[in-house]
């Protein structure tokens, strides 16, 4: 028997309408992603019989989530423009290793203490600058540029590390990584500060608008007079500096500057971007979405650990979540050809 298509008055069937409704919610506000976050949290609160809500666990989630969010802020900005950034793993490793070498460590006598933060951020920004320049001047697609940077940066990180892990002896780092104020981890506070800065950039500066414009329609943006190349280079650089900061915090948390510190961060970063509601095609999303997405992914991962779900199954869960999230939120009107 032929399946009957339910037709609603303006020619869309029910399924299309629901999809449209979803996308409206998700693209317009963060209502959708917040709902997702709450739902996922509920699943795990119930699944762990409440132990999910222990202070220790919540603090852990906040810490991990904050670190991931830092990276996701960066990659989200790039994705908002319609490009992609595959380099976080390499750049974070590079900045971590360099940061390690300039703080109280086993291999050098240099100790700049917390001055390492701006320094590694500049290193990260430097890699972003290179990414942006290659992408705009040599016209190499961002997929390949950042792929190459991933390899290159990771390689340099490994060279600098000399193949050994480098324990950091600065006790202040331990406080930073594990301490908290009124129950909120210091790391989270830093991330919130960064979030505020980025949100201000996004909403209250011209360049914030330009990022969305370029992601919305690059050709039109150029026609209106936006200096697309300059914006791209700046955004890649900002992303790089955020990766740098991520590297610093990872070092603080693990108290060692190891090039493997960032291993496997790309998948959660991309998933967080998408689950948070930022469209892969660009133009829709933002730092709020990035934050929510990062938290959702962290809750998902930590929750699975807490429920003793085999780490091996987690891969599948992450994969399924990613596919579902994109399926629901993708704006198919904008792209006639899906590649």
């Amino acid at each position, binding site marked *: 028997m032929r399946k009957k298509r339910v037709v609603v008055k303006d020619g869309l069937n029910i399924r299309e309408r629901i999809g449209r409704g979803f996308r409206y919610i998700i693209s317009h506000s963060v209502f959708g992603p917040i709902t997702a976050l709450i739902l996922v949290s509920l699943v795990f609160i119930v699944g762990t019989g409440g132990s999910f809500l222990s202070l220790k666990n919540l603090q852990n989630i906040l810490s991990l989530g904050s670190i991931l969010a830092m990276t996701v802020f960066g990659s989200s900005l790039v994705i908002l423009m319609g490009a992609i950034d595959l380099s976080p793993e390499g750049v974070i490793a590079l900045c971590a290793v360099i940061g390690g070498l300039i703080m109280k460590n086993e291999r050098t006598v240099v100790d700049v203490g917390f001055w390492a933060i701006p320094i590694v951020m500049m290193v990260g920004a430097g890699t972003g600058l290179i990414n942006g320049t290659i992408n705009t001047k040599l016209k190499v697609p961002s997929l390949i*540029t950042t792929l190459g940077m991933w390899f*290159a940066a990771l390689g340099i990180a490994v060279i600098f590390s000399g193949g050994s892990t480098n324990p950091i002896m600065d006790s202040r780092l331990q406080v930073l990584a594990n301490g908290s104020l009124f129950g909120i981890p210091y790391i989270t506070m830093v991330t919130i500060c960064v979030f505020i800065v980025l949100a201000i950039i996004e909403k209250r500066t011209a360049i914030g608008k330009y990022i969305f414009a370029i992601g919305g329609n690059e050709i039109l943006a150029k026609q209106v007079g936006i200096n697309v190349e300059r914006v791209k280079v700046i955004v890649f650089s900002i992303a790089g500096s955020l990766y740098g900061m991520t590297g610093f915090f990872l070092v603080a948390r693990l108290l060692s500057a190891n090039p493997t510190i960032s291993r496997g961060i790309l998948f959660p970063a991309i998933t967080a971007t998408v689950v948070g509601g930022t469209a892969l095609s660009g133009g829709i999303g933002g730092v709020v979405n990035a934050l929510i997405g990062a938290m959702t992914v962290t809750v998902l991962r930590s929750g699975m650990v807490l429920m003793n779900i085999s780490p091996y199954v987690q891969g599948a869960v992450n994969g*399924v979540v990613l*596919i579902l999230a994109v399926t629901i939120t993708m704006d198919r009107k904008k792209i006639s050809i*899906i590649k």
Partner: protein
Amino acid sequence: MGKNNRRNLKSIMAKGERELTGYIRRIPAIYISLLLLFIIIVVFVSINRSFLSVYNLKTIGNLTSILLTVGLGQGLVIMTGGIDLSVGGIISLISVVYLLGLKTFGYLSFFIALIAACGAGFLNGIIYTKAKIPSFVCTLGTGGIFVSITYLLSEAPISVPPRHFHYLDVVNGSALGIENGWLIALLVTGCYFILQKYTYMGRTIYSIGSNERMSWMSGIDVRRSKVYAFILSGLGAGVSGIILASNLYSGSAIFGDLYVLESIAVVVVGGTAITGGAGGILNTVVGALIMSVFKNGMTVIGIDVYAQQTFLGVLIIIAVAITFDRSKVMVVK
């Protein structure tokens, strides 16, 4: 006045640059890649003659056969304009499936593993067409799923007990003096070449990559061809996994990790455009040779193992910068 002069100079230089790059652009990418390969070989040989030793060439051959087989399939997907990020997961999965199957199926495990590989590719294709999401996301997700399945099959890495070693001779043995692994890689290359040029599906892949809209308007079932490309990609990754497992006498879920990026690099370095439509099997062959020669060469001339990765990254960017066909895309994202 100065501003005018500067503007003039800039436009003259820009024009000159455009002419030069325009000239370069008109040379088929494969010749540029071959030139690159040639230069790389010459450089390495001149630094250290042992690069050409029989032993070293054998090593290069082994490396190439693995990179080639996974790159071939990836190349087909990229030619349709998509990308397959699950090849790493498939390599891991098939390496384990193959080795596990030796116990029960012996030599037949080879074919069972290949069928499993096609199945994985088919899954990619189905999700891609049903969910209507970009291949980037789809295969990123399925890659994770494949790795999970691998773990389910075997939590710990599998190693092959000596009594089963002879089964692995399918790859490790040699016929007519040539390593079987290379022969298999050559066979796959030949098959894919024929598939791409002389079968309907293969030709549609090329057409879709060149102009998907026109292909659809000409009656081509675009979705079906893309599924086909995914299946072939899975198959290629599967062969790669089998060769890898045979060479290393073991298989595990983390085997394929780094091959995702390497397969993409192999394809684009050879001159296939990441946007699709340009390139082909031969480009991938050259790309695989460039990658393996480069990697091996760096070791031979004594570059730090850790530095190699950096050079590789730079190589990829340079290769694409000179072979990328910019006339096809309006905006470079």
